[in-house]
Structure formats: C-alpha cells, structure tokens
C-alpha cells in the first residue's frame, strides 16, 4: 500500500516536472527581436505589430533555396497542421511569417506564389536590401552570399531557426532543424494557454 502511494506520488512529481519546465523554458528573449515594417504579401499586414494578439512563427530564407528553406517551411506547415487538428480557431491564433533575405529575386508576387503551397495563411515579406538586413540583424539571422561555381547562381550560407513570438511580438523560443515537431507544437500551445 505504501509502495503504491509512493509510486503515485512519484508519478505526480514526474508529470508535474515537464509542465514546470515548459513554462520556465520560454522566457522572453530580450536580446532579439523588435517591431519592423516591410513589403508584405498581405498589404494590410506589413508590420510585425499588426499581428499583436496572435503568436507568430517566423522564419528567414529565400525561395531559390532548394533544400534547407523548403525543409524548414514544411516544418512550419506541419506545426500549423497539427494546431488545426485541435481546431481551425487554434490555427488562426498563430501567424506563419516568412521574411526573405534575397529581395533581388524574391518579389512580393514571387513570395505569394511560393508560400501559398505551404499554407494559405502564410505571409511573406521582402524589402530593400537595407531593410531586410536590418530586420535580420535584429533577430540574429546571418546570411552570406557564397562564392560558388554552382549553376544555381547566388546561394546563401544562412542560419535556419524558426522563431516563436508571443502575442506581444516578443521572441520566446528558437527552434533548430533537429527539434521535433511535437516539441514545437507543445511550445506554441503553452504560449496559447498563457
């Protein structure tokens, strides 16, 4: 009997831990982020603060990238689809956002044509090279055009994090390409429950 009670207590402690950890693991990142305004595929929503009240899943990349960027974008799609499995309303509380660092090739039209295949609610942003560089810098995004003899033209060496922003536009989590989708969904849901 005592053993059973102990086991139960142990279970409660074990179950309690991850919840506490999740809450503690998403502190506001004060070094990264900040509001920005760019050219958007949805003209009425061209500023980060336009998404206030909703969470944002933000990623930086370029559409001519054939391997890493579509992989990261389809990870965003998987997270969004998992949220939709809960309900359409849950999905609507999170805005997927893609900012290009290749404005020379990525026009608003091209971003629109590209992103709609990852989800109808995906928004893309571009701007002048200076504007894009400024936003990237604020999020700690590094992108370097590479010297390459590839027929693909300019390729970028770049970081590939997905940023989870809370309903105030503050950076709360960064996800690398090895982080499981489930963990990302859990993090999003824990912010939705805040």
């Amino acid at each position, binding site marked *: 009997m005592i053993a059973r009670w102990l086991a139960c207590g142990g279970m409660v402690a074990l179950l309690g831990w991850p919840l506490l950890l999740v809450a503690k693991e998403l502190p506001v990142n004060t070094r990264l982020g900040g509001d920005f305004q760019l050219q958007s595929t949805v003209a009425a929503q061209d500023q980060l603060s336009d998404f206030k009240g909703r969470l944002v899943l933000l990623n930086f990349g370029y*559409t*001519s*990238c*054939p*391997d*890493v960027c*579509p*992989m990261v974008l*389809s990870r965003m*799609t*998987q997270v*969004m*689809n998992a949220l*939709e*499995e809960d*309900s359409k309303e849950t999905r609507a509380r999170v805005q997927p956002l893609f900012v290009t660092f290749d404005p020379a090739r990525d026009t608003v039209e*091209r971003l629109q*044509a*590209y992103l*709609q*295949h*990852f*989800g*109808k609610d995906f928004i893309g942003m571009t701007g002048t090279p200076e504007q894009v560089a400024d936003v990237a810098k604020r999020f700690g995004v*590094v992108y*370097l055009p*590479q010297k*390459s*003899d*590839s*027929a*693909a033209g300019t*390729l*970028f*060496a*770049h*970081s*590939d*994090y997905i940023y989870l922003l809370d309903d105030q536009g503050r950076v709360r989590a960064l996800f690398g*390409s090895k982080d499981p989708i489930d963990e990302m969904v859990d993090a999003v849901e824990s912010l939705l429950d805040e």
Partner: protein
Amino acid sequence: MLNLKKILSVLLFWTVAAVAWAGSAVEVTDGWVRWVPPVSENSAAYFTLHNPTDKPLELVSASSDVARAVELHNVIKTGDLMSMQKQEKIGISAHQTLQFQPGSYHVMLIGLKKPLEENQSVSLTLHFADGTTAPVSLTVRKDAGGKSGADEHQHHHHH
C-alpha cells in the same frame, strides 16, 4: 530496307549490352524528389545509396532530363550557418550506406524545365568514377517521411 533493319537491331543489341555492362553494382533505395512550388526553378533529389562491393566507389556526377543542370551537393553546418556546397565527387567506401537527405547530401536539380507534378516519376542517372552508371527512378513528393503538406491536409469534422 532490310539491311537497315538488321543494322539497327545489331546496334540496339550492342547498346543494350553496353548499358548492362556499364551498370553499377550500387543499390539505390527510398528515392524521392522534393515537390516545389511552380515558381521555384530548383529542386533536390534524395535516396539511400549502398555500395555492396568490396571496393570503394566514387559518385562523380548525375544527369536528368528534367533540369538544365544537375549537381552533387552537400549541406555543411558550421555553427549556426547552413551552407550548400557543390561536390566534385562523393566517395562511398566498401559496404557503406550513404543517406542523401534534406540538410545533407543531395542531388540538386537546377533550372527545372517544367514544374514538377506530385507523384510524377523522374529519371536520374548516377555516374561513377569507374565509368559505371546507375539509372534510378524517383517519385516527386511533398515532404520527407510521408508528412503531409498544406494541400494534403485532412480536415477533421467535429459534430
């Protein structure tokens, strides 16, 4: 006319024989090509390459009709930076299995002649340093691991 037919059949025989002769011993499995939105002119092919022989092999190039250029690439991760680099050759030692997968080795299809259709099959030929080749047929898919893309998503109805 008869002569021409005869010459053609002899030619065909030797062509088939030559192809069989040049066939590589490598085993290619789980091949797929990433479906990309029609505005995107580049894509990538992935597969598992196994060298069952006792000798090392060197993959030196790949070719396909679907793209203007086909290159061997690898993604190198340095700190936080992912960079895609063209490879002159990719070695596969004896009995080794090499994964071509997103974020790693891939065959890059540059300048797609036509947008890729889902489930379309793409022919690719791998060329090895010893002169052998391996023809592969790959299926165009939305994403790795059979995970659904945006358009494939099943809607759940709540009543």
